[in-house]
């Protein structure tokens, strides 16, 4: 290599000694560098902002995300309502399934049923959605177009996770709203006004369910497709549900949300506070996997 002519035709130009995409180094001309303030870390953040913007746009246009939201929110609402009505009519199978919740009145009973369903259905919905968000790039072949860009692949992967977590908050609010409507429709506003505070548990469990489904995204990346991520999701649900039913694993982040859904008093707040270690660890693994990605399969 004898040298590089800079300038070109008005496009991004300038050459600098490379330091890796997220390293610290001098910043030359170019759209990212101009906004980058000279530090590699800042460059990464600029890339992350673009990654989030792109992924948000894709998510908002996606029928997968919209239909998953609708299925989860409406499905859990209808299922909870159905189980409560069946319990009220004395259906023994439903009463057995509900256990101690069968006799719980008002908001406590409604929210308890919703949490039991959401602890499994929520993880399934979130795991499938995240597997799609990451695995689709391999299934659709678009992953090749994510190389050779000023926005790094880790920034794109983390952008997906940021959008995913924001989406989980939207789902949490929507589900809480639907269940509130169901409760008020069943007259709990008058008969159990004080119990309405129980609704606050719903968004907490929804977001916790999203957090513990994050490993599915890493598996979808490593496995280069949707199905490995969905398989990981099923694995997370089995571990969480079986452990919760056996009443073990209160300090295991994957299990604590399901246990808290069944028996909130049995799970200390600190056990829930360590749940974010799951997305932090697997988010970092995801970024690393995307950073080191090769199209060799």
């Amino acid at each position: 290599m004898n040298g590089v002519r800079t300038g070109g035709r008005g496009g991004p130009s300038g050459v600098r000694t490379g330091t890796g995409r997220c390293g610290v180094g001098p910043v030359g001309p170019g759209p990212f560098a101009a906004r980058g303030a000279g530090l590699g870390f800042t460059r990464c953040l600029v890339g992350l902002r673009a990654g989030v913007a792109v992924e948000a746009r894709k998510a908002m246009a996606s029928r997968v995300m919209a239909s998953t939201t609708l299925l989860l929110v409406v499905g859990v609402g209808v299922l909870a309502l159905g189980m409560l009505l069946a319990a009220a009519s004395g259906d023994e199978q439903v009463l057995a399934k509900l256990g101690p919740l069968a006799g719980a009145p008002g908001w406590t009973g409604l929210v308890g049923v919703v949490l039991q369903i959401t602890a499994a259905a929520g993880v399934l919905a979130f795991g499938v959605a995240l597997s799609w968000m990451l695995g689709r790039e391999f299934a659709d072949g678009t992953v090749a177009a994510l190389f050779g860009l000023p926005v790094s692949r880790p920034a794109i992967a983390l952008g997906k996770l940021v959008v995913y977590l924001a989406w989980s908050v939207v789902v949490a609010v929507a589900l809480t709203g639907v269940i509130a409507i169901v409760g008020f429709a069943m007259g709990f506003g008058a008969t159990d006004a004080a119990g309405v505070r129980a609704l606050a548990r719903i968004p907490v469990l929804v977001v916790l369910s999203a957090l513990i489904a994050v490993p599915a995204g890493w598996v979808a990346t490593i496995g280069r497709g949707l199905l490995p991520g969905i398989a990981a999701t099923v694995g997370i649900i089995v571990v969480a549900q079986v452990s919760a039913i056996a009443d073990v694993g209160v300090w295991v982040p994957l299990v604590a949300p399901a246990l808290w859904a069944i028996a909130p008093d049995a799970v200390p707040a600190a056990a829930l506070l360590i749940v974010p270690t799951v997305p932090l660890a697997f988010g970092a693994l995801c970024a690393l996997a995307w950073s080191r990605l090769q199209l060799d399969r």
Partner: protein
Amino acid sequence: MSAALRFEASSLARNFRGGAGVHGIDLDVAAGEIHALVGLNGAGKTTIMRLLLGMLRPDAGAVRVCGVEVGRADAATWSRVGQLVEHPLAYAELTGRANLEVAARLHGLDRAQGGAAVDRAIEEFDLGRYAGVRASRLSLGNRQRVGIAGALLHEPEAIVLDEPTNGLDPAGVIVLRESLLRRAAAGAGILVSSHHLDEVARVADRITVVNDGRVIGSLDPGGFDLERAFFALVHGDDETRRAAA
């Protein structure tokens, strides 16, 4: 000093299980040049392109992109690159325009720059009719047009296109040809692979022949009967390897 090199590969090797891969590739693409790679299916063209773009890490040898070693290329370097290898960046749920806006953002353009670049790309690649149509409803050829437009809308100086005429109708082939010639005239270095020797001859300054993972020679773009010359090179190489085996 020779012309600035947009891509430079030296002694490049990457082996796959079963013996496939590329071996000892020396290749460069200068500014203002269209360099074509031709070869049979499985010859190693796409592998070479993947190595040039960091999609694969080499077992041996080195790659430089715009003068920077590919493993150390930063955002400013990659913002000078445009590529389409295999699948176009065309998300099914996004319209043609939205896909281009996403491409602009990923290539480092801000909202204002991106909007203008997308407008130019829609006009250049005659995508006006499809700007509001979801990519899932576009034909293969029009998705390819969207992908090419997205790869080139930021006016990259270093361009890699793998079989860009895939799925394109004759009008699309002409649009692409004019686009590449214009960019090369403006200083871009372009590496393009194709099976269409007549099309390659129309645009390429140099034609390199790849066979069994190695560069085996070159063709004169202005030469007579490129097809015959191509097969003579390939069959000659095959026979040489058979004799040596």
